[in-house]
């Protein structure tokens, strides 16, 4: 029963792909605007075997992009989680910082690019900074919300057992907020991965990056490679999320 359910979830996307290919083959969808699924798959093959630019392998593009995202994401978690816990825990801090946070948060990472280049120059650091901005706010906000929504009764129970501030903070507040923090991490990573293309607009010195690769594909007008690149980004983002979910399930097995 489970097996069938899983397979039937693939049914709809598969049908869509077939329909798309049919419409393309019939010439109803011009391939200069929308390449067919077959063209895209052969495009991905080309990206993997030949590389774009020629000789730059898809693997290296993925790897470099992963490095940038890891750097930005790790910074965002390293700052966002402790800061979020403090903001959730201390009311005066919350009152002080909330207006600033809420003003900066709506600014899209893309808009920070000129500043990023000004501060960090062209290359890895400014790209990681843009990604950091994408990851940071979901992580921060989820952490704050996680701390604020800790069941008061757990803290009271700890108090009556004799726990002081530090013990309550480390052994009740933080573990209780962890599910929310994990959610924030997953969302943050997803958004950070999405800002990859924008981040690589800051200039790629190493010559590798999925966003960079898509830019080249667009420059030489290969929409099939553009979409192939997009598909790769989507697939990798999906795999990253799956990995995080697995980690979450292991660490939060008590749920």
């Amino acid at each position, binding site marked *: 029963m489970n097996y069938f359910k899983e397979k039937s979830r693939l049914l709809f996307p598969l049908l869509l792909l077939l329909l798309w290919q049919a419409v393309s083959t019939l010439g109803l969808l011009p391939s200069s605007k929308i390449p067919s699924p077959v063209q895209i798959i052969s495009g991905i093959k080309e990206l993997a075997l030949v590389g774009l630019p020629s000789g730059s392998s898809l693997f290296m593009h993925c790897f470099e992009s992963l490095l940038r995202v890891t750097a930005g994401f790790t910074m965002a978690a390293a700052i966002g989680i402790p800061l979020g816990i403090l903001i959730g825990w201390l009311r005066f801090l919350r009152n002080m910082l909330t207006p600033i946070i809420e003003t900066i948060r709506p600014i899209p990472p893309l808009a920070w690019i000129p500043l990023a280049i000004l501060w960090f120059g062209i290359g890895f650091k400014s790209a990681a900074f843009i990604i950091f901005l994408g990851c940071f706010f979901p992580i921060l906000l989820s952490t704050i919300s996680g701390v604020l929504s800790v069941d008061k*009764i757990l803290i*009271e*129970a700890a108090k*009556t*057992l*004799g726990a002081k501030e530090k*013990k309550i903070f480390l052994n009740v507040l933080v573990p209780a907020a962890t599910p929310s923090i994990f959610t924030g991490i997953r969302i943050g990573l997803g958004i950070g991965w999405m800002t990859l293309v924008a981040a690589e607009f800051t200039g790629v010195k190493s010559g590798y990056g999925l966003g960079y690769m898509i830019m080249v594909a667009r420059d030489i007008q290969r929409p099939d490679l553009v979409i192939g690149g997009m598909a790769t980004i989507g697939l990798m983002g999906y795999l990253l999320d799956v990995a995080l979910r697995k980690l979450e399930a292991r660490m939060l*097995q*008590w749920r």
Partner: protein
Amino acid sequence: MTLELRNLRKTYTDGTGEGSVDALSTINLTVREGEFLSVVGPSGCGKSTMLRIIAGLEQPTTGAVFINGEQLEDPWGRVGFVFQEYALFPWRTVSENVEFGLELKNIPGKERRRKALEYINKFGMGGFEDTYPRDLSGGMKQRVAIARTLITNPSIILMDEPFGSLDSQTRNALQEFLLTVWQNSRKTIIFVTHNIDEAVFLSQRVIGFSDRPGSIKLSLEIGIPAPRDRTSADFNRYRKEILSFLQQQSTAGR
């Protein structure tokens, strides 16, 4: 250790200082050492508030709590508390929950585990030490909560309708269980409940609150020797007396 509440009052004011609610009105109470005291009263009369003040979770507006004549400044750890909603730490196993209080006393891991297992087995939860709370029934959870409190050796244990979330069969079983625990440990227990049967079955004395703002209007010694039979005439007599007191309280307020 005798517990004394002297002139306890609690008034809640809202932020503007305009509206205020008197939750507790002048409580004076003395609890003997080792006494099992039940507290009954209409909803919202302040019994939980009194309990929380004793535990240090809230501050009284006037009055104070005294143990052996000394004002109780820092009740944390001296007064145990069992909540209706169990309040187990969901990320900790049964054993880790029970060990919590011992961690505060810097007892090393192996020793903690050993002591926790002692209680777990004694309370009939053997085999569940590495289970998470989400896999436990309500009755089991409350047993873990009681073990968690008991292991820290508090002089007084407060219980706020601890069996309120349980079905009646589990409830009865846990009442038997609690009685055994009390008989073995002789802790002072203050037990808030809505269930008159429960109060009569468990306690040596029952106090009754008036409607809000609550004050103590009834203090009834239950003179039935153990084991108490819930169907006996004596039992019924006490039950009726408390019931009529409560009925008076609800109409008095109108």
